[in-house]
């Protein structure tokens, strides 16, 4: 198990070879440096050219404007020492050491507007950091608009209490170290024209390692190493038609999905139940689990908006998709294994499974806004969302010399409907009242949560009436008050924890006390109850927050932003616990959260001090501090020295072994142009 941990940790971004992980950052920096390092003589020369004013009709950008503007930030980060649980640190923060391309942001404009008018590009957190992003936006007015977006997010999670709170040292299932990468490309042609086609491609993938469990009935579970691999490709294209009286968007798309996860083990794995079973030690020696999941989907989308008359807006949406999944799965295990129910011991197990799921999914939405009088607006909307998942599977299993096979085919139906009416009345220029009604209804038939592989279906219905009200008050740009309320009563709900009879209210006010001083206050409450005798759900959450912003002289010297948030959550629900004894599941969360930032500007430099704290009591008392100080000072023309200090402190009263605390230091340069 320690070896497994070692493998898991070394594939992360923190401990190993920050220089290698920073390779891409350095390469990118080298590519960018010539751009930013060019002498500014060229734009100056352009500005001095006598022909420049004459070109102003062709180019709206002033001739003195540089063709390249932007900045980049590079630095080195130290993690001088981490006290506490390293894996918890990686699960929560995950910032590592080494050279970093902290961020770059630049704009290229072409005064002659040949291939493009303008390209905006920005990227952040490269060089082994866990959250890499890159974006490019290029456009040529009236011809095209191109957008590219890339995210590479490290998804590490190894929280001992999530596996077993009483055995943090050796019980490490359900941990993983993944990279999820998402790319998206979109090209709009003739943007703003009456007919504008567009094309897009998205790809999302996840790759990494982790620890899964292989379960032997209710007898034992064996931690085994896992390889995760999946990707989804999405292609879509469409046409937007924008005319004077109406608009139509038609889109057709499709997805391809592949998942090829694998779990493997070789050695002696005694599992998590060390007690012998009927005098025999249970052990797993070899395991191979191979998933080969493929999927595809085609979908269609249509959006219509129209204003046939000045007092009437119409809209409608229709969405249809039909995702399909094909399953192939193979498993082989050897060891000293057992079927507890029959006390049958065996040495080899094989399992093959195939199957699939096909889920036609239709969503429709339509509505209108009518304005019979100048001060009155009525908005009506209907929505339906319905899907039907036809599921089937065939499983063949061989335990020792015994073979079984099982075939199953069953459906899942879910139908959801909603109708909502809202009326808006402008009582005065500053006061608007809103009232409305929403009805939600539907039905669902799903596979019941039976222990048998071939259990029954369960059906449920949903029927809810919701009253809506709201108020907006504005006075002289200085005061804004917003109230929002909905109260509901349900005849039928799907699940014990679903919203049943609830009241939800929100009040928000923003007031400008003086020219540089703003204050904002929020209050929210959700109270949900289900009085059914076997449920007795009582849920209440409240949030109060206040924010203050002080920016004298538009923040040229000093600006202060501070926010404090107090939230409470209380939930009680009845259930039958061990030996069918009545019990209550109670959850409490009383949290204080604060964030602040103070910016001081002087002599071209800047000093920022702030951060956040989170302190909670209740079912999982937690303290999490993130103070921060950052400074930026000019050292040469267009060059700034930057330095940053951060502290992360995390502590949980009931799970002290998960706590950590560390300082992070960073220094670097920012170059602007």
């Amino acid at each position, binding site marked *: 198990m320690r070896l497994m941990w070692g493998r898991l940790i070394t594939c992360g971004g923190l401990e190993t070879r920050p220089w290698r992980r920073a390779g891409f950052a350095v390469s990118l920096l080298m590519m960018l440096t010539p751009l930013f390092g060019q002498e500014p003589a060229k734009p100056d020369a352009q500005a001095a050219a006598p022909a420049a004013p004459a070109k102003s009709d062709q180019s709206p950008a002033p001739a003195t404007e540089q063709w390249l503007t932007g900045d980049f930030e590079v630095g080195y980060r130290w993690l001088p020492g981490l006290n506490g649980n390293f894996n918890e640190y990686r699960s929560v923060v995950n910032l590592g050491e080494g050279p970093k391309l902290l961020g770059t942001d630049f704009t290229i404009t072409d005064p002659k507007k040949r291939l493009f008018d303008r390209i905006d590009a920005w990227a952040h957190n490269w060089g082994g950091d866990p*959250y890499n992003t890159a974006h490019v936006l290029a456009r040529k007015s009236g011809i095209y608009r191109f957008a590219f977006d890339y995210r590479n997010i490290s998804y590490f999670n190894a929280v001992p209490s999530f596996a077993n709170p009483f055995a943090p040292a050796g019980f490490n299932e359900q941990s993983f170290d993944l990279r999820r990468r998402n790319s998206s490309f979109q090209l709009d042609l003739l943007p*703003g024209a009456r007919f504008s086609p567009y094309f897009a491609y998205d790809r999302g993938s996840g790759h990494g390692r982790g620890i899964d469990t292989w379960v032997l009935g209710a007898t034992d579970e064996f931690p085994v190493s896992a390889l995760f691999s999946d990707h989804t490709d999405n292609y879509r294209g469409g046409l937007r038609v924008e005319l004077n009286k109406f608009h139509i968007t038609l889109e057709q798309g499709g997805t391809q999905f592949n998942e090829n996860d694998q779990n493997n083990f070789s050695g002696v794995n005694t599992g998590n139940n060390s007690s012998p079973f009927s005098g025999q030690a249970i052990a797993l020696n070899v395991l191979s689990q191979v998933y080969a999941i493929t999927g595809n989907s085609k979908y269609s989308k249509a959006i219509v908006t*129209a204003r046939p008359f000045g007092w009437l807006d119409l809209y409608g949406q229709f969405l249809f998709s039909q995702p399909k999944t094909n399953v192939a799965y193979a498993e082989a295990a050897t060891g000293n294994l057992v079927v507890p129910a029959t006390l049958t011991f065996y040495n080899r197990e094989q399992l093959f499974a195939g199957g699939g799921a096909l889920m036609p999914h239709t969503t429709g939405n339509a509505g209108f806004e009518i304005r019979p009088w100048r001060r009155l607006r009525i908005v009506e909307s209907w929505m339906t969302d319905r899907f039907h998942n036809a599921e089937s599977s065939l499983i063949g299993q061989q335990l020792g010399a015994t073979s079984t096979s099982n075939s199953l085919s069953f459906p899942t139906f879910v139908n959801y409907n909603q109708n909502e009416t809202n009326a808006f009345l402008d009582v005065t220029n500053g006061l608007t009242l809103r009232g409305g009604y929403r009805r939600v209804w539907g039905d669902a038939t799903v596979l019941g949560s039976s222990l048998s592989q071939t259990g029954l279906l369960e059906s449920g219905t949903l029927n809810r009436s919701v009253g809506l009200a709201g108020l907006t008050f504005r006075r002289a740009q200085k005061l804004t008050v917003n109230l929002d309320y909905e109260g509901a009563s349900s005849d039928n709900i799907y699940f014990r924890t679903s919203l049943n009879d609830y009241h939800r209210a929100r009040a928000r006010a923003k007031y400008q006390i003086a020219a540089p001083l703003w204050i904002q206050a929020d209050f929210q409450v959700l109270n949900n109850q289900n009085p059914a005798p076997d449920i007795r759900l009582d849920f209440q959450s409240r949030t109060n927050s206040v924010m203050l912003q002080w920016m004298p002289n538009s923040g040229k010297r000093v600006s202060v932003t501070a926010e404090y948030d107090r939230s409470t959550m209380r939930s009680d629900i009845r259930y039958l616990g061990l030996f069918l004894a009545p019990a209550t599941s109670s959850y409490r969360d009383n949290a204080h959260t604060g964030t602040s930032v103070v910016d001081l500007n002087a002599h071209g430099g800047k000093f920022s001090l702030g951060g956040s704290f989170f302190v909670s009591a209740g079912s999982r008392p937690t303290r999490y501090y993130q103070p921060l100080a950052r400074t930026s000072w000019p050292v040469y023309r267009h060059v700034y020295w930057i330095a940053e200090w951060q502290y992360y402190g995390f502590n949980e009263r009931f799970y002290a072994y998960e706590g950590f605390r560390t300082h992070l230091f960073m220094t670097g340069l920012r170059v602007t142009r």
Partner: protein
Amino acid sequence: MIRMMRQTRRQAVNTIRLAALASLSILVAGAQDKPAPAAPPPPDNKPAEYVGSQTCQGCHEDIYNNILKSPHQRVEVDKHRGWDGKACESCHGPGSKHAESMAPADIRQPAKLKPAETDRICLTCHLNQPTHAGRIQSSHVKNNVSCVSCHFVHKDRLVARKQADINAQCSGCHTDVWASFQRPFKHRLTEGAMSCVDCHNPHGSVLPRQMQQTVNANEPSCFKCHGDLRGPFPYEHAPMRVEGCMACHQPHGSANPRMLTRHEVRFVCLECHSNLPAPTPSATGALGGTPPAFHDLRSPRFQNCNICHQKVHGSYIDRGLLK
């Protein structure tokens, strides 16, 4: 007798004439308080006329230059839209009076109008766009949040594009939501890896909470990143499919690992899998409720259900969601 009758009638007619004259006088006097539309306007009250963007540029050159670098530049040059050379006045109305007096009161200022009126100006051009389909039913419109609350009409970039900028803008109003992201387990918004609009569509959506629709058009945006949990699965976990991810997770942030709604896994599960007789649709028609009868919940081994039931989002193989 007849003379007396004629005198009486004449007096009555005179009285009526007098009353009518008095009423007319009052009406005329009252009418003098209001502007008389029929009267020719004095030279000062002459309706303002369009003067063209070049005139605006004289004083507001920086704004003018920014607009010419922004997508709104098309308004200035596109003859089909009818505002060529008058991009500024397409929103601010005719500006001749303002150009003469330079008084702010002499020109329309959309930022100071009622939100619905401001939106109406934007929708003059943007009505027939896909965003309008969701706009009508969005909570932003319900709460009178106008287009210019988020969009910068005068800047070369009409809306914030970087994650950090978007988050700063949203958290300016949704302070309580931003506070949730200061909790230890959360989506990576404070690190700048994500933004609010990755999950929410500020213009409105058919999905609850203005969730973005992605991947298969009518699926929530969670599956854009968590594509491996999208399914469809041969063995679905009904709450995920019926109620969505928020049945078990707090996506904005939580003190509980994996952003769960409860402090330990078993409490999330037990609130539905509650040992109640099943499958018996109760009076409320609730789904779920099978007893985990053979699990001794006093043992740590059984307190985190997901150790064994690890495919809790849906399984391709096993109905017990074990593999």
